[in-house]
């Protein structure tokens, strides 16, 4: 139990996917201009990441590994992720037209969010078992959501701040992201095993 908790904390804070591993930067920059959108994106990504890491574990261990087809992992995982994203898109479109419009193109782009594929592949390289895979996926998504929402809140404040002309727009956003990344480096050493 403690192991699982440690794994969760370490994925969310210490090995944060966005700020420490630098995965999933496209939605991090793209969807963070409004907090509301960022929260919607966080929920969608959390769902996709958790389900995709669960399914990709099953696909790898019960289909690919017994047949010796591990060289197909990347291809098979992209297939799994695409299906989960497509399914999520249908459900979101049906349940919340507003969220669907807010997320717009970013919803299908979760397919190409490298953090999602990254979680699935890292689960295999780290030889995580079934529950560890789910927790790793969920933790990665939680970490992604955390920094995305924090970052969007900062960008909303930045929008009304007096920024020097050369730094306006994406420049100041990237600098902020860099500073956030530095701050998250501070979590290294939080968990000692």
């Amino acid at each position, binding site marked *: 139990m403690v192991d699982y908790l440690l794994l969760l904390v370490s994925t969310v804070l210490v090995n944060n996917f966005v700020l420490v591993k630098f995965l999933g930067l496209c939605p991090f920059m793209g969807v963070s201009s409004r907090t509301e959108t960022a929260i919607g994106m966080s929920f969608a990504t959390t769902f996709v990441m958790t389900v995709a890491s669960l399914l990709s574990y099953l*696909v790898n261990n019960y289909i690919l590994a017994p047949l010796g087809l591990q060289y197909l992992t990347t291809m*098979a995982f992209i297939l799994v992720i695409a299906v989960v994203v497509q399914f999520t898109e*249908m459900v979101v479109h049906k349940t919340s037209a*507003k969220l669907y419009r807010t997320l717009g193109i970013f919803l299908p782009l979760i397919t190409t969010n490298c953090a999602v594929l990254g979680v699935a592949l890292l689960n295999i390289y780290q030889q995580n078992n079934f529950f560890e895979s789910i927790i790793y996926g969920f933790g990665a998504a939680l970490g992604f959501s955390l920094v995305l929402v924090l970052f969007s809140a900062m960008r909303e404040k930045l929008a009304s701040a007096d920024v020097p002309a050369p730094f306006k727009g994406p420049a100041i956003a990237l600098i902020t992201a860099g500073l956030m990344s530095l701050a998250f480096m501070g979590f290294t050493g939080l968990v000692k095993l």
Partner: protein
Amino acid sequence: MSILIAIIVLGSMCLLFGALLGYAAVKFKIEGDPIVDQLDALLPQTQCGQCGYPGCKPYAQALADGEAINKCAPGGEDTIKKIADLLGVDVQPLDESHEQDNTPKVAFIIEEDCIGCTKCIQACPVDAIIGAAKQMHTIIIDECTGCDLCVAPCPVDCIKMIPIKTTTHNWQWDLSSIPITVLENETEKSTMINDQKELMTNELGA
């Protein structure tokens, strides 16, 4: 042999997932695009065409496809705010090329100048002008939405837009139809005031 297995395995996975998505597509089917109807309900239904679309419904459709939200002159800032809220985009000021002033107006035909050309009748989207060829025309004030469209076609410039004076007859007595937010408690009130202050400083800064 192993390639054959790989093809079969991936192929059957594709088939399985495809079937799943096909089932989901049927299960979560959406009739029409509800967002267009919601947008249409927000627009003022003057059918004036000042946005460049032939009416409110086509503009609602265009909005759903990503058209700029600041083109509805009769709706003014209020409508823009509501549309922005529904679509989850930022509020924009009313497009400069469209009329800024949205005080209610009504068209008025200077009857001694009218030559009875019927051009304004064809332009009127709400059939608020009566008259026939070579007969003097006049406006049905209660039908006129004040959309301006009859002004341009008139060859003798005999149509004026006059603002409607507020009288006890046209004053909106029914206060419940005017959107008023009742603030429940002090914290909400103070955040509201702060928001307004922030908005004002932003506007001053810009």
